[in-house]
């Protein structure tokens, strides 16, 4: 999996590409939790190029959003492909994060708010 991290306004934006699974989740966990600890209070994950997520990836999102809540921060996701959205729904995760259709929508409705 490839990740790129940028700062947009008052948010850290991570773009993920490929597969977030048991092989790749550990490295991403470290990267994301570090950003949560030291970065701004808003984190946006751009999933538009993410093809696959498993429960190992969901676990990282859960840990990160809890850590963010402790500092009164917030995490949102955008661009989920239908297969991923389905996984979020059956895992009961769709209620945990605002989900935006696109990066543009997330930028205007989440990042710039």
């Amino acid at each position, binding site marked *: 999996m490839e990740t790129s991290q940028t700062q947009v306004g008052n948010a850290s934006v991570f773009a993920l590409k490929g597969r977030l699974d*048991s*092989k790749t989740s550990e490295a991403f966990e470290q990267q994301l939790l570090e950003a949560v600890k030291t970065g701004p209070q808003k984190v946006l994950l751009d999933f538009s190029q993410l093809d696959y997520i498993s*429960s*190992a990836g969901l*676990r990282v999102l859960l840990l990160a959003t809890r850590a963010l809540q402790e500092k009164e921060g917030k995490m949102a996701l955008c661009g989920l492909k239908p*297969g991923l959205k389905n996984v979020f729904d*059956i895992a*009961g995760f769709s209620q945990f994060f605002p989900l935006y259709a696109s990066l543009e929508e997330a930028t205007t409705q989440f990042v710039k708010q």
Partner: protein
Amino acid sequence: MNEISVVLKNEVEEIERLSEIVNEFGSEHNLSEEFVYAVNLALDEILTNTISYGYLDKEAHEITVTLRVQGNELAAEVIDDARAFDPLSAPKADVNLPLEQRNVGGLGIHLARTLMDEMTYRREQDKNVLIMKKRIAS
């Protein structure tokens, strides 16, 4: 070809290799992207569990995965020599709990069970034999 078998090593890196085989099998049988995702995820969750927790030694082990299309159904069979584990007996994850109380333990198996229509397990000759089935919408 209505059936394909692949032998994996007990390493999580093997799951991605398997997914490529599943994707190819899926397109040969005109299975939808969503269907193939479900099969991949169910296999991933079961295999990740087995590879991470199933082996008490540090030796190399073989896991055989077979995909089969029978009528309007796909069957995915996983046979391994890990310690006995029946995913059907695992405690159910409560996916309705709020964020603060959520525990991700058991989530993988919950996903596999939800995505597949049927799951059967048996222990046979010191091996775990798990068969997961999913109906193909016509």
